[in-house]
């Protein structure tokens, strides 16, 4: 059985954000990490693999050369192989053309039984790619998963998902796409042995020519959304400071809220 985990390479939240003159993200010199939610998606796949080492876990990334560092970490944690989609023609993709590119790569990887994605990325934060891939592949989706069990014999996945206000247990037959939110468990760290093993694992780099897509379906050309400008949010007004005895502070705080008609 074959599982694909989509792994995005994102700038670290702690780093200051910079933009290049062409409005693309300035990535040089910015510390990059695995998108935090994708780490949980990978962890679920690796837990499945713990239970059945014959299960093949493939990571899929669309990104620049520097993404290889992040991909190696995934291999060191236990993924079997990795695919990196890299082509100047992919630059400027919007959420849909990104999904289209990833879906085409999943089709090319072939015989995939499940795809796992983080629910959203920490940079673009679109929440779109997972469900869009599912639609493009004509698969069902299970979203906001916190835990997932794979039944290989019966060919279905059962998940615990965080629905609005309730925890739901839902299942779907394979093939299926899962979007994963923060789980109750922490993602594993790579072991020294894993890091050594990662160097021998396959990291395929595919260009647009490897995918069944034409240039006008991807990148700037395929994008139907154009970013016009970036701006800084208006600064928050300088705040008021309150201190004193608890009773006094409490009275002033409630007064403040009352003046703003918040209470």
């Amino acid at each position, binding site marked *: 059985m074959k599982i694909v985990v989509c792994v995005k390479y994102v700038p670290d939240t702690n780093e200051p954000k910079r933009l290049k003159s062409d409005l693309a993200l300035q990535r040089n010199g910015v510390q990059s990490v695995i998108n935090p939610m994708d780490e949980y998606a990978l962890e679920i796949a690796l837990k499945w693999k713990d239970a059945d080492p014959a299960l093949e876990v493939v990571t899929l990334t669309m990104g620049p050369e520097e993404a290889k560092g992040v991909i190696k970490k995934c291999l060191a944690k236990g993924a079997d192989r990795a695919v990196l989609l890299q082509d100047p023609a992919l630059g400027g993709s919007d959420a849909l053309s990104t*999904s289209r590119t990833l879906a085409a790569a999943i089709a090319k990887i072939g015989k995939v039984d499940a795809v796992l994605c983080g629910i959203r990325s920490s940079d673009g934060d679109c929440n779109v790619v997972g469900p869009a891939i599912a639609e493009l592949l004509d698969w069902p989706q299970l979203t906001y998963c916190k835990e997932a069990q794979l039944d290989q014999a019966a060919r279905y996945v059962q998940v615990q998902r965080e629905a609005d206000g309730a925890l739901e247990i839902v299942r779907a037959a394979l093939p299926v796409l899962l979007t994963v939110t923060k789980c109750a468990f922490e993602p594993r760290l790579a072991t020294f042995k894993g890091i050594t093993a990662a160097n021998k694992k396959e990291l395929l780099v595919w260009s647009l020519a490897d995918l069944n897509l034409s240039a006008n379906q991807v990148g700037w050309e395929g994008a139907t959304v154009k970013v016009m400008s970036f701006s800084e949010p208006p600064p928050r007004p300088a705040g008021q400071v309150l201190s004193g005895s608890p009773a006094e502070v409490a009275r002033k705080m409630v007064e403040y809220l009352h003046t703003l008609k918040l209470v």
Partner: protein
Amino acid sequence: MSGVWTVAEVSDGGIKGISFELLGAARSLANNLAEPVGTVLIGHEVANLADELFAHGADRVLVAEHPALASFAPERHARVIGDFATAYAPQVLLIGHTGSGKEIAGRLAARLDVSVITDCVALQLVDAQVRCTRPIFGGSMLTTAVATKGITFATIRPKAFARPAPAIGRPGEVLQLAVSAACLVARTEVVEVVNETSTAISLTDAEIVCAGGRGVGSAEKFELIERLAKELGAAVGASRAVVDAGWRPHKEQVGQTGKTVSPKLYIAAGISGAIQHLVGMRSSDTIVAINTDPEAPIMKVANLAVTADLLEVIPKVIEELKILKGAAV
């Protein structure tokens, strides 16, 4: 292409607040475009809710009813909305950037063959183009984007647009959308719904969020945050530190790996304000921080920075609120 359209959200037989906010966003665009506002209303026996949508600014309500649509199912809803778009060719389509909206946005983008501009906080009509502004990097920057081919499809951040004042009795036209068999796919099966928390206010819908962090001290002491929340009619939020410690469930977590909220009032008690927390709440209208450390990062973003021990201050705040309420009646 014509018309500015929204998709209403329905739950427990009523219309959810976001649906009215969408109408608020749609109405001003539509006025400027001289186009009507339409709303797609999906569910089972929901046609009676149309009047409320008219009152809040819809000119037309397109009803898609079927027993199988009684509860939200992303694939089915995306297909119904896709059918609507084929039939009506909307110029602008707005849905909520909510739990369910996010589940269908991607599927719908793929069906409509146009990308979606997500989490919009402002819409502006310039040269017949709808400019959509959205926060990125957890609100540390804003970006403005336009749709270049076909329909402008956007998801709207809850609480970013005001709900229009209702005009009771405002007329409108009810239209029907036939639900095709192809829309009724069922490829997922709900096995069980556990821990239904219907009485608690949902974090993302709440006007006031009362959040606690490690500074609260223990799971037991969180009762204080709950009491304050109850007094304020607020939802309870939490930092990751307290979720990781097992004091609170993850569904209450605010931040990068939790929920993004923008309530009218966010109270952060015993939360330091790490960047990963700030990205989930800094677009709140008013932020009140209670912290013993005046230098904590949360104090820098707060409109009101209260330097105090939360365990001492919050009981007094609850007392004050009770007095205030007593005075009001």
